[in-house]
């Protein structure tokens, strides 16, 4: 079983498509929706997908064919290690503890796997080490 995170972008004409249903039914994927929004420009869906590696690959192909923009999420938020001063301002901001401090070194670690791309750390980081990678 593999676990991956994706950001899907829908043009307005796709907003009514039951895409998540297809992903569950046709590709046997376990879906955890982290964020969803519909705006004038279309919709965005942030989700964690669990399933057989082959099925996830097939599902991505289906999404591409359906003209859904697919972006893998490991690259959504990035920590610039040179910029980070390990102050720890982000620690009480991150809602899922993707940012933690290692003791006794007091080094701040970023676990991209845990990140749900809420972006709350970005404007909280004093030296500007956290950035969206869109």
């Amino acid at each position, binding site marked *: 079983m593999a676990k991956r995170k994706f950001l899907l972008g829908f043009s307005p004409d796709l907003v009514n498509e039951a895409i998540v249903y297809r992903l569950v039914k046709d590709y046997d994927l376990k879906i955890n929706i982290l964020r969803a929004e519909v705006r004038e420009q279309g919709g965005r869906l942030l989700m964690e997908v669990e399933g057989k590696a082959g099925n996830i690959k097939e599902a991505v192909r289906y999404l591409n064919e359906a003209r859904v923009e697919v972006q893998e999420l490991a690259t959504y938020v990035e920590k610039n290690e040179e910029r980070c001063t390990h*102050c*720890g*301002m982000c620690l*009480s*901001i991150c809602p899922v503890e993707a940012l933690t401090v290692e003791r006794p070194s*007091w080094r701040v670690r970023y676990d991209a796997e845990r990140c749900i791309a809420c972006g709350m750390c970005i404007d*909280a980081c*004093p*030296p500007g080490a956290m950035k969206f990678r869109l």
Partner: protein
Amino acid sequence: MKRTVAEINQRIKDGDVVVMTAEEVVSYVQSEGVERAAKEVDVVTTGTFGAMCSSGAFLNFGHSEPPIRMQRVTLNDVPAYAGLAAVDAYIGATELRQDGREEYGGAHVIEELVAGRAVRLRASSSGTDCYPRKEIDTYVSLNTMNQAYLFNPRNSYQNYASGTNSSERTLYTYMGKLLPNYGNITYSSAGQLSPLLNDPTLRTIGVGTRLFLGGGTGYVAWEGTQFKTNVETRFGVPMGGARSLATIGDMRGMSPEFIRAVALTGYGVSLAIGIGVPIPILDEEVMRSCAISDEQLFSPLVDYSVQSRNRRPIKHFSYAELRSGKVELFGREVRTSSLSSYLKARQVAETLAERIEGGEFLLTEPVAPLPADRGVGTLEVRSKEEAV
């Protein structure tokens, strides 16, 4: 046990000085006792690394041909104060770029210069008989300037309040992002490593004290602004903002590792600086002060949704509690964040210890003491008569 700065310096020169950081000395004193520790250890090094808004740099650009008396100066579009002699300027850390956006300011210019990069200098003048030139647009760096030194009116605050937010909306403050409904607590102190917490009455620190500043060497220039001594203490240490230092030091020799521009969203730009002061262990009393630990150092918690200078502390937390990552507030667990870097504070104290052990850094006696009794006044809207 008594020891003088001169004796310590002799031991530094002889290569047998014993140095410990203010963190290492905590457990050393706990296991060996103050008497033994004072006998064994000559110097305790301290360190802090945090945003210090009251910082800036004096720069002398050299004269152009034909010469100009600079009246308006910008560096990478950040205005600098030029109401000085012809080609002198002061760039303050919190000054924002002319477009007013919060991402870039004087602190960034300072960091770029320290990193060895060139910055764009633009200056204008109305022109005089002796300084005919009216405009210049060029690049400068630490290599081209005659003098470039930090002169920081307030650094290394002795303790500081921690912040929280009782309101319904997120607050963007100089204490960082404060989440609604007491959603988090932020603090900013190196605690047991912090310079002025280890010598709470400034017995060994005064005007002229040589220190680690931004990776290079600096000095205490004066008392810091808003220096005050009349603060409630616990274990002999102030329980809130008290003393501070005005510091000075050549930017050449500083490193971007210890000079870092920071942007606090919704507040503006500030400069994070690494500062370390060596404390000569003159006697057991000095050692006792240096052995203070995070469990014995307290920070008052204030509510930043109260938009007044009179914010009463909600309660006091020790730095040990704050540093644990969460504390209990009104029966609820609240997560904490530090704005200053303990990792960097430790690097400062360790680097300073290495420099002393290596014979590169000698200790100084204060040239003059800092005030022993000083309060802080407020600003009121007054008439001319009331102000005198």
